Structures are given as structure tokens and as C-alpha cells.
């Protein structure tokens, strides 16, 4: 299991979906739902703050063709035990994935792009879902689980 956790944040930074894949065996703590909300809000703010710290860049950055719109905000956090990637879509949705140390950036970005595609199918086309609200769609959860096992 390479992907450890998945968070989905709406454009105002509110947590709309959170999922741990096999938490105990991977060293990720299980927090209370309040803690998850706080974590999400913190990541949303840090994403913005870090964009304001950009030094006068002397070398241009490469073009990205992965669909990730995250150019100036927080992109990746490396810690001793895991890596955290943030993928932003055109509508401001942030997909945050926590992966094991060995996983490359391309794999993680591909995973998050797939999550985005699943989101636009099973959440956006669901008449019972209100925009920016927590996601409670069963089909979406199933597909995300399948995706995490396949990666």
C-alpha cells in the first residue's frame, strides 16, 4: 500500500473528504474528526502563506502537463516518515495525499489526477450532493479504495 491518506479540501479550505488507508500498519495516527478539520485548515493556510515567501526566482520553472494547477503554493512536504503532496484543480479543489517515502512525484500526481477524475464523475454528477459539502457518496469511496489498491 503506497498511498497512506487522502484529503479533499474545497476552495475555502474546508475538509470535504478524508480517508486513511490502513492507518496503524503505516505509522499514521488516527485522529479525531476535529483534528482532521484542523489539519485541513492548517494545510490550506500554509499553502497560501508559503506562496508569499517566494524569493526572486532566477531560473524559470518547468511547464507541467499533469493538470496540477499548483504553481506557487505549497506543493510537497518531506518528512522522515512520509511525503505529502498537494494537487490543485482549476476550481480551487485541493487534493492532498500522504504517501510512503519511496513513492515518486509522478506516481503521486497520477494518483491525485485519477482522484480528480473520480471526483468529477461520482460526486459532481450526483444530484444528492451539494457543492462544497462533505462527501458522503458511497460510489466515490468505493472507487477511491479500488484506486488506492491498484496504485
Amino acid at each position, binding site marked *: 500500500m503506497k498511498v497512506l*491518506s487522502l484529503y479533499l479540501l474545497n476552495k475555502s479550505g474546508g475538509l470535504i473528504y478524508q480517508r486513511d488507508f490502513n492507518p496503524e500498519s503505516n*505509522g*499514521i*495516527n488516527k*485522529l479525531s474528526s476535529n*483534528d482532521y478539520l484542523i*489539519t485541513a485548515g*492548517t*494545510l490550506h*493556510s*500554509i499553502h497560501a*502563506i*508559503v*506562496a*508569499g*515567501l*517566494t*524569493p*526572486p*526566482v*532566477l*531560473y524559470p*520553472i*518547468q511547464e*507541467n502537463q499533469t493538470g496540477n494547477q*499548483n*504553481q*506557487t*503554493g*505549497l*506543493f*510537497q*512536504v*518531506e*518528512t*522522515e*516518515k*512520509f511525503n*505529502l503532496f498537494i494537487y490543485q484543480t482549476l476550481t480551487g479543489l485541493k487534493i492532498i495525499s*500522504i504517501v510512503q517515502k519511496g513513492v515518486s512525484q509522478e506516481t503521486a500526481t497520477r494518483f491525485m489526477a485519477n482522484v480528480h477524475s473520480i471526483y468529477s464523475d461520482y460526486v459532481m454528477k450526483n444530484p444528492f450532493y451539494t457543492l462544497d459539502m462533505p462527501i458522503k457518496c458511497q460510489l466515490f469511496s468505493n472507487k477511491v479504495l479500488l484506486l488506492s489498491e491498484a496504485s
Partner: protein
Amino acid sequence: MIYSFWIFDRHCNCIYNRDFAQHKPASKDTVNRNNDKDEAKLLFGAIFSMSRLSSKLSDGNVLQSFRTGKYKAHLKETATGLRFILISDSNVGDLSGLLNQLYSDLYLNTIVKNGLSPVDFKEGMVIKNMSFINGADELITQNGDFI
């Protein structure tokens, strides 16, 4: 390309800052110019929140670096609460070796073992030790990633 070098102490103050990006080659004027600017406080705040978040998600986790599309920040936190931060280009690899060198070879020898430098930096005090500044410049400019 390494853009800047920061040191924060455990009282959340910036005690050293060196900017390599504004002028090339780095002149004496760029030392400790940004210590009280908002940039320093934002950087410290971001790093502080991020390290708290990582240790909450996984016990005993240590924050090593974070990256945006435009730059990458490498950090080292010591047991005494000192934080060493190097800001570099986004595609630079792992600079933890350089950070460890800066701490163990340079900082320990010139600041900690120095009888004349303060043990605990008070509000507003910065590192003005010339041997430290010169040594830091040498180590950083001679690193393979500095262009």
C-alpha cells in the same frame, strides 16, 4: 541555486539571515537584513505549523523539507530548538548534508564553543561573528548546488 540561509532560535526570533539572490556575488550588506521583516515571521510560522502537523500525523516525525512550484526549503531542527533553513531552487536535491555541516562543523565551533558569544540570544540580537559569516559563505558557495 541557493537563495538564502536563515537561522531561528528557540524564542522564535531570527538570529541570522543571509541572502544570496539579490546581489551576485553576495556582499557584506546582505547579511542580517531581513531579520525583522514579515518574511522572517511568515517563514517561521509556516515551518512551525508544518512541523507540528507532521508530528501529529505520525509520532516522532521530523520535518525535512517542503517545496512549492518555485522554490524548496530545506530545514534542520536541532535538539536545542534551533532551526536552520536553506531556501533553494525547486529542483535541488537533498541538502541535509550541507545543513548538518553548517551546524556541526561551523555553528558549534564558532558560536557555541565561543566564550564571547551569548549563550541565549536576547530579543534583537543577531549573529555578527565574522568567522561564522565567512565560514557559512564558504560552505554554501562551494556546495555543488550553488550556481
